[in-house]
């Protein structure tokens, strides 16, 4: 039977949902599911893991995520336990684990995984525009996109916890200093019923007015995808997605957003999703309830007029 490692992820004292998603998936593969938890005084975090066993490593150096300390510890656990499959999040933390593990433990890595089975992994590449199936022989690592599997399937009543001594973590070159919580914004996009969300399709800052007018008419807040924040057209507090916020409004109007997996992760649970995008192949239409490929610069002003 396969031995499946699931690398648990936690931030600021809370277990991240990706952990449960991966535990549920591992269970469905029918293997021996071993959750790997690193922390300091964090053993209780595993109390609702649906796993056959929990390997727990306790060290002050592991209290908060540290790419170097976590990599070293997980490489040593994989080396001593030789799992057949390692599931790790394709997340900010997971990215700093998976690729290094691949080299240090000489295991193939398949990233951006949206599905995993024995010997085959499906990835979402090219901004979610292509699915790619990889065949892999022998043991492998998959880094799993958040939101790919249900969270509930990975929750259970915990499992026997085996404490493992940490490897030598002296002389680390990376030192964790502190976690900084986001500053509160002028608008809380997680608390509004309607969001008008804007992406790269808006083209330039002057055009932001077009969506702002629609948002004002609806009494909605304006949110956005990553490129808009990187261009500084809206503050970080308005960003929906992987490195932004998760939102669940009644109505989510995606204007000029293609729907890369990083964005989808933050908005797919909205009640009603409307997508306006001229690219008929944009992945956003797979998640939307209603869609149009008419030009946003025609539709949005006309819609504002009719409301």
């Amino acid at each position, binding site marked *: 039977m396969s031995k499946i490692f699931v690398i648990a992820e936690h931030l600021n004292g809370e277990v991240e949902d990706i952990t449960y998603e991966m535990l549920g998936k591992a269970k469905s593969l029918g293997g021996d599911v071993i959750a790997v938890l690193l922390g300091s005084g964090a053993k209780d975090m595993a109390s609702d893991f649906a796993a056959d066993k929990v390997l727990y490593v306790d060290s002050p150096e592991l209290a908060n995520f540290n790419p170097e300390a976590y990599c070293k510890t997980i490489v040593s656990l994989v080396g001593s336990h030789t799992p057949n499959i390692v599931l790790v999040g394709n997340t900010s933390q997971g*990215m700093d684990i998976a690729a290094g593990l691949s080299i240090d433990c000489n295991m193939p890595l398949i990233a951006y995984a949206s599905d995993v089975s024995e010997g085959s992994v499906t990835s979402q*590449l090219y*901004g979610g525009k292509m699915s790619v199936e990889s065949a892999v022989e022998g043991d492998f690592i998959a880094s799993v996109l958040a939101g790919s599997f249900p969270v509930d399937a990975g929750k259970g009543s915990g499992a026997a916890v085996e404490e493992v001594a940490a490897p030598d973590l002296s002389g680390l070159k990376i030192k964790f200093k502190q976690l*900084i919580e986001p500053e509160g914004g002028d608008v809380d996009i997680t608390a509004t019923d309607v969001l008008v969300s804007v992406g790269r399709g808006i083209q330039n800052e002057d055009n932001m007015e077009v969506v702002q007018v629609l948002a004002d008419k609806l009494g909605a807040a304006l949110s956005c995808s990553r490129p808009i924040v990187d261009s500084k057209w809206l503050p970080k507090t308005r960003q929906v997605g992987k490195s932004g*916020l998760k939102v669940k409004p009644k109505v989510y109007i995606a204007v000029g957003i293609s729907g890369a997996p990083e964005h989808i992760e933050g908005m797919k649970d909205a009640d*009603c*999703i409307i997508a306006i995008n001229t690219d008929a192949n944009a992945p956003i239409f797979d998640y939307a309830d209603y869609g149009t490929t008419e030009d946003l610069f025609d539709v949005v002003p006309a819609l504002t007029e009719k*409301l």
Partner: protein
Amino acid sequence: MNIIVPIKQVPDLVEELEIDSSGKDLDREWLKFKVNEFDDHALEEALLLKEDSGGTVTAIALDGDDIDKALYAAAAKGADKVVKVTGIEGNVSNHEAAKAFANAIQGMGADLVFTGVQSVEDRDGQLGVLLAHYMNVPHISVVTGVAVNGDSVNVTKEYGGGMVAEFEAATPIVLGIQAARETPRYVPVAKVRRAMRSTDLEEVSAGDVSVSAGSSVSRMFKPESGGGAEMLSGSAEDVAGKLADIIKGKI
């Protein structure tokens, strides 16, 4: 600080992507390529850091179509040195690309290596972390801020929900840049042409890159499109009318 910035060309997603006759790869014949947008951020952050704290910036790329132009553009933006890695070309795995970069960078005395945090083609993992492990140095991904602090650097790493962690790290280190402090600078074509005439493009051999991703693509397919959405037909005016009714019904 001596900062090295590896640059990678990736398919431009603005173009329609087609699958080739093997069913396992993109049809690359007509594909338009551009510099990975996160690499632009990596270069920008490197240039900003140099402007703040001094040092040199070297842009380095694997051989390939149009790569000279991308490197000259980096020079026009302010890179002090541009280097092309030869003996490796075409559609290689990130494991191979990272190994080639590691071989080429070795001996350059890098304090910092800035890569784009990810690209649209990272099937076998993100380049920066692979590179760091081949170079045997630590790494931090999803970086949104870097400041020089004596011999070390202060780095901010971004998590979900806008939470960030602050680290202090010794050099050398590889950082996967998510976003530069400023929007990557634009450089006019005339300036790139001038750089082309005045810049010495160095070449370095890729060396031994006998590593592999360890897996192979068995199938590429487009995710079902429009699977979820009911597509509204008619003119923009008609569509707006239908959308207004839908929205009014929900709020």
